Every structure is written in structure tokens, then in C-alpha cells.
């Protein structure tokens, strides 16, 4: 058992898998010598050498293309896209090529690759370096989408993503990099498509992802003091989606809240809401409420950014107001 922070867990998970599979390679901007601009790949160049951990030009399309072409010819790959906002400059490669390759070739092509990227706000980086874009990927058939909230989940889900024979977009949250957690010794491998009930409750279900998980938990603590028992679920992977766990919880509590960092429209919260509103409608005891960043680009000033992204307070207050 060791304590690692989320940032270190990334390198830990990659190293675990690179030791296991000598063919696994990784590429991205400033990932080798520099250890990544978020220091999430520190030590990998030293251990695995420049043939397996490679710096690239600022050419995101070339990065994803190279990772995809290698993956479809027998070399599993990890591509880093420095900030998830930059998924937009290689969106075609990801959504039109990587995601669709297997289906449109009648199953001939496999693309075992992981796209790792730093996601989310809280760093006062402004509109082009702070977005939560997991919905950009969730809405694309053929992509798996993972977004862990703790160091141990980073390792286990990263391992599962790397071992998965299909393309996975793996979102690392910038505002969680410094957070710490216990990590067991030995190999850690988790399972995609499994949500975690991180707090049991009976009055309502709060579903959260990544940075929103600790905030939901904090809100739930305070709700508990006030007599509202909230169950908190960390979705962990958006595709595949663990609807069993989600629906089971809503059936039990009768109330659903989703807490999303992405802007309001068409987020994963809307997807989960829609599944619930169709499949367990008769179990609902009241409206489903989404708590999201407003539908605005993210501002850079501290005061404004903090106001934009859902806080524990906002989660707490929304639940109190609507369960009242």
C-alpha cells in the first residue's frame, strides 16, 4: 500500500502496462524528456527509452493518426492530447477514423489505442484550456469513454483501457492531479463499464464524474447532517455505461440528480436522465434535476470560474430546494 497522487497514478498505470506488454508504446507532445506538461509521464522515458516514449511535433492529427495506424497493425498505443480542448483539432481522426474503423470495414480493423487527455476546469486557464469534453466523445459510436476520480481508479481503469481492444478516450482531470489516495501494491486492473456507489443513501441518487465526485460527496455529507440520505455514484466510465447500477439506485431512492462539469446541453447527465425517464419512470418520486456548468464558455477569472462549475454548495442547495 502506498499513497500516490492522481498525477503519479497516471505514470504508475502506464508503467505497469508497459512492463507487461513490451509492444505498448506512447507518443505525445513533451511527454518524454519533459515528463509531460502536467508531469503525468515522469520517469517513463528513463524506464522505457525513447523508442517507446516519443515526443512529437505539435501535430495532433499526426499523433492520433500514428497511434491509430500502429494500433491497427499490431502495436497497441497510448496517445496523449495535452489538453482535452485540443481534441477539437484532431476530432476527425478520433470520431471519423478511429471510432468507425472497425464497423465500416466489417470488423476487419481493430484499433487498440488509448487517448489520454487532461480535462476540466479549475485552473483559471480560460475558455480554450478548461473544458470538460467527455460528451464530445460519449456521443460518438465506437469510442469508449473513461474519467476516473481517484488515484487507484486512474491506475485500474487506465490498465483496463489499455488492455481493451477498442479505442478508449481517457480523461484525466486537471484539478484532481494533486489529490492523493491509497494504492494497493501489485498489479491493479479494473473493469470498464462499472460505476461505483461511493456513498450509500436512500433518499436520492447523486450521479457524478471526475472532479464532481468529491464535490457530490461533500454535499452528501452535509445533506446527511440535515437528514437527507443521498446515495452518490461515481460513473467512472461513460461508455460502456453501467446502467444497472444507476437504475438500481434510482429505483431505490426515487430521485435522481446528475452533477456535470460540462456545459449544460447534451451532456452525459442528459443521457442518464433520459434512460431513467424512460426505463424507471414509474419509480421516480419527483423531477430529475441536472446540475451543470451553465451553457457558457468558461471564464478565466477565479471568481467567475468558481461560480460556473458546480460546487458542493450548489449540489447541496439544489437537492435541499428540490427535495424540500
Amino acid at each position, binding site marked *: 500500500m502506498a499513497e500516490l497522487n492522481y498525477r503519479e497514478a497516471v505514470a504508475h498505470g502506464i508503467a505497469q502496462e508497459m512492463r507487461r506488454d513490451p509492444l505498448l508504446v506512447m507518443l505525445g507532445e513533451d511527454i518524454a524528456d519533459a515528463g509531460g506538461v502536467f508531469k503525468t509521464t515522469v520517469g517513463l522515458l528513463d524506464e522505457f527509452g525513447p523508442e517507446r516514449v516519443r515526443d512529437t511535433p505539435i501535430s495532433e492529427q499526426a499523433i492520433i493518426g500514428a497511434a491509430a*495506424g500502429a494500433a491497427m*497493425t499490431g*502495436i497497441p498505443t497510448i496517445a496523449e492530447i495535452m489538453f482535452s480542448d485540443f481534441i477539437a483539432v484532431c476530432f476527425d481522426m478520433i470520431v471519423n*477514423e478511429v471510432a468507425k474503423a472497425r464497423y*465500416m470495414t466489417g470488423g476487419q480493423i481493430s484499433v487498440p489505442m488509448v487517448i489520454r487527455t487532461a480535462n476540466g476546469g479549475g485552473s483559471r486557464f480560460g475558455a480554450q484550456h478548461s473544458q470538460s469534453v467527455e460528451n464530445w466523445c460519449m456521443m460518438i*459510436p465506437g469510442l469508449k469513454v473513461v474519467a476516473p476520480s481517484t488515484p487507484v481508479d486512474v491506475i485500474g481503469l487506465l490498465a483496463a483501457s489499455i488492455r481493451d481492444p477498442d479505442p478508449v478516450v481517457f480523461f484525466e482531470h486537471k484539478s484532481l492531479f494533486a489529490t492523493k489516495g491509497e494504492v494497493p501494491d501489485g498489479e491493479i486492473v479494473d473493469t470498464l463499464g462499472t460505476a461505483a456507489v461511493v456513498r450509500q443513501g436512500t433518499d436520492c441518487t447523486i450521479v457524478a464524474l471526475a472532479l464532481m465526485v468529491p464535490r457530490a460527496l461533500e454535499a452528501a455529507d452535509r445533506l446527511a447532517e440535515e437528514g437527507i440520505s443521498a446515495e452518490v455514484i461515481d460513473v467512472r466510465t461513460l461508455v*460502456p455505461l453501467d*446502467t444497472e447500477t444507476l437504475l438500481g439506485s434510482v429505483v431505490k431512492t426515487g430521485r435522481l440528480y446528475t452533477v456535470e462539469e460540462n456545459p449544460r446541453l447534451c451532456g452525459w447527465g442528459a443521457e442518464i436522465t433520459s434512460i431513467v425517464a424512460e426505463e424507471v419512470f414509474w419509480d421516480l418520486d419527483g423531477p430529475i434535476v441536472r446540475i451543470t456548468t451553465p451553457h457558457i464558455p468558461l471564464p478565466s477569472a477565479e471568481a467567475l470560474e468558481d461560480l460556473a462549475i458546480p460546487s458542493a454548495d450548489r449540489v447541496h442547495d439544489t437537492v435541499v430546494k428540490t427535495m424540500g
Partner: protein
Amino acid sequence: MSTDRAEAGRHDFALRPSRPPAPVDHANEDLPIPLETRVEMYRLQQELRQFEKRAYDLFMQNLVKGTSHLSLGQEAVAAGVAAAIRPDDYTFATYRGHAHTLARGVGMGPVMAELLGREDGLLGGKGGSMHLTSVEHGMMGSYAIVGAHLCIANGAAWSAQIRGTDQVAVAFFGDGTTNIGAFHEALNFAVVWKLPVIFVCENNLYMEYTPSDFVTAVPHPAADRAPAYGLEAVLVDGNDADAVYEAARKAVELARSGGGPSLIEAMTYRHGGHSRADPGKYRPDGEVDAWLERDPIPMYHQRLLRLGVAEGQLTEIQQEVAQRVDDATEYAKASAPPGDAALMTDVWADGGSAWRN
């Protein structure tokens, strides 16, 4: 505004300068290419020509749905490159990929069936004309969004490098594709990583309906840009299979020996329109005729005769190919449309498409 237009000289088809082919370079006859390779290239060109003509006919009969982009007139490029690579090499093509697929030895039947959207199609009817792929033949896909596959070809070349094989990857693309960002990223990346990849620009002078030189800053969209990546400018007659073969051979040799990528620009012409029913009316008078005069196949036919191949052998090849095209047509027509179950398969490696439990 009509004065402007006449002045610009761009918007009046009659005023457009026609861009005729260069004359045949008969010196290519003297290239040291084994005769059997040449005969093979002849056979390939016949295959591609006859297949595409049939595809066109089937389209006119409304049997090919969707779209299709034929390589009629461009056969020498596909044949020349295919003859210069090994079965374990990789190719990446565009939506205009029938020729490149067949040139790798993929059966005409499955390709034809795919164009018709049948269950025996190469992709089970899921991909269609624009996405022909046969991994077992090293044909790693046809990509319908301009430019992307140049980046992906790099990855296949990188993979060969990692695995320590001496495989090469070839990416075919058009003149118009040289202006998209992915072209630039792919070229720079390939050079920096010294990847065994060969970029083959089939310059057929046109994008969809617009001549590429109206929207390209340099006369030779690929060759003139090679130096921007530290590469040699290679410009060849794309209607002469020998010229293409020779350029490809050199590039393959360089790539296999660790010398990195090459960029080849092959000048050619599509005899028909861009896709499907496009009659190609936007081409200036005389241009099509001039290029039809330089049809790669009759020229090559003559060359082989001069090199001592018997007319009878060439006729036999033609007939054998014709028979195979007929067989493929029958095969395709006889195949059923894909069953409903196919819809939900092959999104994931487990064969299915479940995104939830």
C-alpha cells in the same frame, strides 16, 4: 461582374487553359524492369480498367447505390506502385480506392458485391465503395475524408519500425488533398520519425469539380512542397506504369533500408467525372481528348509489343480479365442484401455494439 470573371479567366470553362499531358517518354522503355513485372503491370491495368467500366455500367443500371469514384485513366499509378511492393506491405487509399484494392490482389467478387451493398461484399455491405479494405491483403482501408489516412499510414510505418520488419506503408491521395492540414502534419511527422512510408499523390488535375491549380499556391502541389519537408521532389508520368514503378521501387528501397519517407507526384487524369454521374463538363474543350490520347493502357500495350511480348498473350490477358469481371458481376448480383442482424455487429471487438449493461 462578368468582366471580372472573364479577367480572372477562371470562371468561364471555355477560357480555362487546358492542361494536356506530357508526351510519352519512350526512354522509360529502357528501364531495367523485368518483362514479367511489366506483363503483370499490364494485367493489373487491364483488371482495373475492366472492373471500373463494369462498375460504371452497374451504376448506370442503378445497382450500385450510394456513390463511387472510379480510377478510369489512372490505372498506371495503382499498377506501378502495386508491382513495386511486397504482399506484406501496407496500402492506404481514398474513396477512389477500387483500383488500389484490386491491385493488392483482393478478389473482384467481394469488391463488386460491396459496391452493390451485398452480404458477400468485402465489408459485408457496411462500408461501400468508399471504404474498401482487406487487411489480409495489406489493404488497410479506403478513407473518405480527405487527408486523414496520410496520418494513419504513418502509424502503420511506425509499427513496422517498432516490430523491426522492413514493411513499408503507401498512402495514395489526390492533388486537392495537398491543401488540407493533415497532409502537412503527416509529411513532417514521417520525416522527423524517418518512417518507412511512401506518399503517392495522384495528380489528376481536379478536385471534385474545381481544378486544383486554381486553389493551390504552387504548380505541383506535392513535388513543389517536398523540400518543405526536406524531401526530394519526385515528379513522374502517372500514365506510364514503368515510370511509376521505377519511382516507387526507389522509394521502397529507401524506406526498407531505413532511409525514411518519400513523396511522389504522379501526373495523370481521370477519364470520367469525379464521382458517380458527374459528367465532368467543367473540363475545357480538348483536355479530355488530349488525355484520352495518352490513355495509359494502349500506350503500354504498344510498349509491350515493342519489347517482344506477343499480341496473343496480351489478348489472352484481356480475355481472362474480362471473364473474371463477368464472374465477379454474377457473384455480386447473386449475393443477398445483408441481413438485419448485421446492423448491430462489429462496433466493438466482441463483435457487438452494446454501450451499456
